């Protein structure tokens, strides 16, 4: 007698999808900006989990990178920077046409994505992805895409200098 195989990936995927939507709503509608920044961290974690669940063998490395670089650096930087605004009072004024315009733009984007997806899927034969190899990724990053890599390195170094300048200024 064999035990039934339970698919745990789908409920986890749905759960973290719901988490990401809830975190996004808190970011947009939250009264305190600091909690919105914390919710951005929750959103980043949810997106990392969703990416890992899409293809664990291939995308797990990027999922860890997303957690370390995005959640660990960007969101923490935003949260810490908000402390600089002492006595910050956030006043929000509702804009009536925001919801319909966002809905219309969302529908247009959805239609564009569906059209592009349908044309791409019919054009390709859906090849099976090869197994992930970290050395191939490094080679592509340093040989094929060397120029964007240099740009990113220079931009991050410039950002480091800027952050030091900001921290030293009264």
């Amino acid at each position: 007698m064999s035990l039934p195989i339970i698919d745990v990936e789908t409920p986890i995927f749905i759960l973290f999808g719901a988490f990401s939507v809830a975190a996004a709503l808190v970011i947009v509608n939250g009264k305190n900006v600091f909690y919105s920044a914390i919710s951005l961290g929750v959103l980043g974690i949810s997106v990392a989990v969703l990416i890992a669940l899409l293809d664990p063998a291939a995308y797990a490395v990027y999922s860890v990178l997303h957690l370390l670089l995005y959640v660990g650096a960007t969101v923490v930087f935003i949260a810490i920077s908000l402390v600089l605004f002492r006595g910050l009072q956030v006043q929000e004024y509702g804009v009536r046409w925001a919801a319909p315009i966002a809905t219309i733009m969302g529908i247009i984007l959805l239609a564009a994505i569906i059209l592009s997806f349908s044309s791409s899927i019919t054009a390709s034969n859906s090849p099976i992805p090869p197994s992930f190899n970290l050395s191939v990724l490094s080679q592509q990053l340093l040989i094929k895409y060397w120029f964007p890599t240099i740009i990113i390195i220079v931009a991050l170094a410039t950002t480091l200098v800027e952050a030091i300048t900001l921290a030293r200024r009264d």
Partner: protein
Amino acid sequence: MILTSIGLYGIFKSRNIIRILLSSEIILNSSILFVFSAGSALGFTYTPILFSIFVIGMALTEVIVAFAAIILYYRLRGKLEVG
């Protein structure tokens, strides 16, 4: 798609600079998720990872530069509302 719509709603609705920046980060996350979904569906392994590494690096730079501008704006105006 839902995340993109929520981010767009936040950008249009809010007049606080920080919340607009956070809403744009929602759209960034949704676009990264879409790239990986498309890569998984079409059988690409390395392209979404390489694309997202560059996007995340530029997003980190953009956030820090934006916050420097926001801090300067707050020192000049004493408020964070625009419009």
